[in-house]
Every structure is written in structure tokens, then in C-alpha cells.
């Protein structure tokens, strides 16, 4: 077990995993998707989580994203233990503190680019005019020309869709952005653009965690961890 972050200059820890273990039972066999994973992520980190498929990196992402809870150990977000929270409270953390970026973009197909960015704010019951205003700002942050604001996801290129998705993840100004293979469905050049965008957000202070099996992406990050068989194997940073 490796301790990450201990050697770092003491910064503000925004995410902390403590002996997080997740077990799946397949018949009689117990599979450790995560095996006593301990991880510290500080505010402003750009962390790349690498690992082959089935290594447990998606499970790790789900833990951090409050979509799944550990069987053992604890997850702290902004030093709050989320391990024993109810569905409603987890939902609020996802809404306010975490921004999700998916490989498949996962935009709501019936909403326009702008409306997709507005959605998390509207879910937070922020007044519509305020949402529209913020969403327009975000649109320029993710470098999407305003003429695309009224386009449906199906009318956008994959790169543009991922920009909208990143925009949506920024909507409620979360402290952590989780990206699961954000370039997995993009060609190399578009993927680079997306990574540069994430890097830019990181430079503005966002904590970014990217899960990928593409080693090239680690060049954008200041920390890289490798997961194999549910364990953090090495600290490549």
C-alpha cells in the first residue's frame, strides 16, 4: 500500500480515501475491486488514475463520485465523511461538489447545449435567468461559440459534445471534476483539445481527476497513480 500525498507540501486536502475496500461476490468467490486503497488529493491537483480494464479504476471513480459506497474504509470530501450518508445527501454532494465528465458525453438528448449546462443549476433550483447567464459564461469558458448554444447534442460534433459535457460539470462550481476516459471517444487531435481545456480549468484552481488507460494523458497531470487488481501499485508522479 502506497501513501500518496504524504510527501507533498501540506496543502488543502479536498479528497481523501482511507483503506477503501469494495468487494464483489461472484458465487463463492470474493473479488476485491478495491483493496484497502488510501489516497489523498489536494485542492488544485490534476490526478491521473491509470490502469487496465477491470483493475478497479472505475470502481474508484464511483467511490469518489459518491455513486457507490465502500464496503470498508472511508471516503472524505472536503474532510466530510460521506461513507454513511443517505441517498439524498450523496445526491447533494454530487450536485454541488462534483462535476462528472463521461466517455460517452451523456448529454440529455432533448436539451440544447445551453440547457444541458443549465440543468445542474436548475436541479439546484437556481432561478432560470441566473442559470442562463451562468451557462452562457460557461459556454465561453469551454470555448464553444455561442451559435452552438441552441444546438441539440445530436447536432454537435463529438468534441463539441464533450465541451458541453465539461461545461455541465462546471455548472454548480464544484471543487472536483471527475473525468472517466474523457478522450476515449475522440480522435487524437480533438482529445488533445479536451485535455488542454481540463488543464486550463486545473490552472484556474479546479481539482481534476482523470481515469484512463491511455498513458499519454498523464502528461497533463501533476500526479499519477496506477491501479492493478484493486490496489494502488505505484506513484508515477
Amino acid at each position, binding site marked *: 500500500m502506497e501513501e500518496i500525498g504524504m510527501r507533498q507540501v501540506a496543502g488543502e486536502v479536498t479528497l481523501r480515501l482511507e483503506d477503501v475496500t469494495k468487494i464483489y461476490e461472484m458465487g463463492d468467490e470474493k473479488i476485491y475491486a478495491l483493496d484497502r486503497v488510501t489516497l489523498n488529493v489536494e485542492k488544485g491537483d490534476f490526478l491521473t488514475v491509470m490502469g487496465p480494464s477491470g483493475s478497479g479504476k472505475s470502481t474508484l471513480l464511483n467511490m469518489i463520485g459518491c455513486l457507490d459506497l465502500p464496503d470498508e474504509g472511508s471516503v472524505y470530501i472536503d474532510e466530510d465523511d460521506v461513507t454513511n450518508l443517505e441517498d439524498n445527501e450523496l445526491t447533494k454532494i*454530487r450536485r454541488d461538489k462534483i462535476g462528472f465528465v463521461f466517455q460517452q458525453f451523456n448529454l440529455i438528448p432533448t436539451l440544447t447545449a445551453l440547457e444541458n449546462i443549465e440543468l445542474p443549476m436548475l436541479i439546484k433550483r437556481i432561478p432560470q435567468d441566473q442559470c442562463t447567464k451562468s451557462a452562457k459564461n460557461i459556454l465561453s469558458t469551454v470555448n464553444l461559440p455561442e451559435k452552438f448554444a441552441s444546438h441539440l447534442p445530436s447536432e454537435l460534433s463529438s468534441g463539441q459534445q464533450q465541451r458541453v459535457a465539461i461545461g455541465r460539470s462546471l455548472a454548480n462550481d464544484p471543487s472536483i471534476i471527475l473525468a472517466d476516459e474523457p478522450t476515449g471517444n475522440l480522435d487524437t487531435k480533438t482529445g488533445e483539445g479536451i485535455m488542454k481545456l481540463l488543464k486550463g480549468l486545473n490552472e484556474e484552481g479546479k481539482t481534476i481527476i482523470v481515469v484512463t488507460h491511455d498513458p499519454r494523458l498523464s502528461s497533463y497531470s501533476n500526479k499519477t497513480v496506477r491501479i492493478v487488481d484493486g490496489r494502488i501499485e505505484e506513484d508515477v508522479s
Partner: protein
Amino acid sequence: MFLKLARRNLSRHRFRSILAIVGIIIGVIAISSLGILGNSIKLSVTDSFGDIGNEIIVYPDYESGWSNLTKKEFNAIRKTTGVDVTIPVSQSSSQIQFGKDSTFTTVYGVDAIDMKALLELSSGQFQSGSRCVIGGVLADSFDLKHGDTVNLEGSSFKISGILKKQGMRFDISADRAIFITPKSYSSLYENEDYAMIIVKTQGVEEVEAVKERIEANLNKRKDRVMVFGMDMILESLDEFFGMLSKFLMGIGAISLIVAGVSILNVMLISTVERTKEIGVMRAIGSSRRDILILFILEATILGVIGGLIGGVLSFGGGYLVNIIILKKASYLFAPSSIVYIFIGVLFGVVTGVLGGLYPAWKASRMLPLTALKTE
């Protein structure tokens, strides 16, 4: 926002949504139209009884062996407090002849003045002396006109007037009857007794009290008379037709149940198809309640659209069934009929909401992670 999202989700499968709406429309039309039909039948029946609500009919108590009422009872009734008009009616049946034809009819001995209070003429004048009045149906079936002569028990009567067709009545079956004066009646049948005495009270609200007074007075020592208040009959008619309306609406409701099941089906398919989307919504911070609201909203929109269109078309449906079954549509716009359209619309909306409840609950219970992983 949810409204916008719900609306767009529905238009995603336009044809499917339209079919679900059509189901609701049919259900609403069925409920409203059948309700209107029941109500119109009720209105047409109560209308045809007109203003008999304040009528009381006194019969001899057949069960105790009486077959007639006499002057004595007549006078007693006439003096009862609250009684406005007292009409003694003699009744018999005889063969009447006119030209070569003959038929059996009911013969009533009623005074011309009393007749005016009970019946309306379509032509001519009421009976007097050796003149008679005949019922509208009798006149029609034998092509009799006023001025014609009929032969009754060996005496000749000239027809002075023909009555309007009455339809069903509780007091006098006038349509196939012949009416002569009490004087002619008593000389013809050598009998001055009455088969019934029709009483009109000053108002409908007095019927019960007058009825009780007559009973108390005349049945003091023995059961002499049977007394029927029309208000009771009207009340039970009301009740009967109310039940008829409900029964007809129940039939209509079956089609609405089918519509509800079709909404249930559409929404269930939608939750399955949109599992991943639900997962995404949950991941970016939608609560279970948000998902629940969204899906119920979608079903409600189907119900509201179907209900409103159905409500508008119900006027057409109500018009059609009224024209077909009652041959006239004038009762369609009676307030008591319009109520059924609102009931239909309400049921349509409620059906939509109910149809959406289970799918919405199911969608809101999905685990975010599982839903998100679904392709």
C-alpha cells in the same frame, strides 16, 4: 424546466405519445357522453312528468277490499289543510264503436274544469254535455277527428277535442282513453263512485304533510285509502336515473382504464429506454424526487392533453348519443349535463397521473450507478 424537459421527452416518441393521448381522449369521451346521455334521459323523463311534483293520488285500499272512493272521502280530502285542487276521477272500461271499427278503451268521467288542470288539448274543446274528448294516440290510430261521433254503451258522443299525446303518467293514462263528463258517466254506468282522487297541494314541500293528514283522517278506523305522493315517485325516479348515469359512466370508465394501462405501458417503456439518462440525471445531482416529478409530469401531460381534447370532443359525442337515442340534443347544454364533461376531463387527467405513478416510482428507485452503466 421540468415541464420543458417532460414535454420534449414526450415529443421524442411523438407517435407513441399520441396513441396514449388518443386512449385518454376515447375514455373521456366515453365517460362524458354516456354520463350526458344518462342525464339527458333523466331530464327528458322528469320533464315529461312536468309539474306533477305537487300531486297526490288517493286510491281505495284494494288490499282491504275497497274498490271505490265516494263523495264522503272526496269531501274529507277537499277539506284537508294544504289541499289546493281536488279532482275526482271515475274510471271504467268499455267497448267503443265508431263507424265500422270498435275497440276497448278506458273511460274516464272527469269534469271539464278539472281536465284543464291535468291535461292539454291539441285541438278542439273539453267535453261537455254529450260531447267527449279522446286521447291523442287513440285519435291517431283510428284517424278520429273532432266532430266525429263515437258510440259508447249505447249512447252517442260527439268528439269535441283531442288531447296532446302524454307519454307515461302516473295518474291518468290518457293517450288511449275517452273522457266524458261526470254526469254522462254516472248515467251511463249508474255509478257515482270514483276510482281515484287526484289532489294538488299548494306547493311541493307540502306534499308529505298533506299526504299524512289525508291518511290520518281517512284511515282512522280502517284502511280506507292508499295515498301516493308524486314527490316520492319523482325522488325515486331521480335516484334511478342517477344510478343509470353512473352505470353508463362505469361502462365508459372501462375504456379509461384501458387508456390508463396504455399510459402505464408507455411510461414503463420510457423508463427502460431512458435508464442510462436517468443514471446521468442522478449522477449530476437530480434527487429521487426530481426523477419522480419528471416522470409523473410526463404522464400528467398526456392525461391533461387527452382530457382536454376529450372534453371538447365530448360535446360532439354527447350530441351524437342524444340525437341517436333521444332524437334531440337540447339537454346537452343543461348545466347538469356539462358537469359530466368536467367529470370526464377530471377522470382523464387522474388516469394519466395514476398511469405514471408506478413507472415514476420505478425510475426514481433506480440505483444511479446501475442506471448509469446500462447501455
